[in-house]
């Protein structure tokens, strides 16, 4: 049982690390702001989520785990909101996504980017 938990935790950490790097590369390589938000989204959700879950399994049932859950909940709440505010600001500020479609569609893209 312990072995399984241990393996699970290491696996989650590894997955998280890989996703973090993927997100980082995405943030550098993607062409414009709205696309880069997807990279940041990967960092915020898969990366952080997996790493923190792995740490939670390591921590066991204690105050540590509760704090980690709190951190995770805050990040899950705040980072999509922040990305949403940012996308809105960018759209208001006149930055358009590269494919030059209608702005309404772009709004939905910008908003949903944080959920991916």
């Amino acid at each position, binding site marked *: 049982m312990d072995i399984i938990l241990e393996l699970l935790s290491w696996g989650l950490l590894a997955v998280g690390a890989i996703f973090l790097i993927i997100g*980082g590369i995405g*943030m550098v390589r993607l062409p414009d702001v709205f696309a880069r938000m997807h990279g940041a989204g990967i*960092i915020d959700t898969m990366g952080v989520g997996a790493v*923190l879950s792995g740490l939670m399994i390591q921590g066991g049932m204690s105050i540590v785990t509760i*704090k980690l859950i709190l951190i995770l909940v805050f990040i899950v709440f705040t980072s999509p909101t922040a990305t949403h505010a*940012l996308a809105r600001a*960018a759209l208001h*500020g006149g*930055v358009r996504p590269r494919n030059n479609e209608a702005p309404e569609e772009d709004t939905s893209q910008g908003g949903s980017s944080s959920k991916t």
Partner: protein
Amino acid sequence: MMVAVTLAVLVTMALAVFRSILGPTVYDRILAVNAFGTLTVVLISVYGFLSERPEFLDLALVYALINFIGTIAVSKYVEFSHMGRPTGGDELGDI
């Protein structure tokens, strides 16, 4: 393994810094700062486990909360303060 995760976070941080220095528009920079804050949270949590002093988690909690305020303030400033000048990137491009 923890060391590997720490390294991954550091690499990602470097990428975020790269984007924030290079970023052609203001929004890229904001995005990079936000991502950097999230990465800081992860780094501090992982380091807390690495050094076996989980008191560090309070610190990560502060970041998770405060980082949000910073991003909101910046987006708000950008959205309402210079409407007419969307890309406030450095015109000199001297980096």
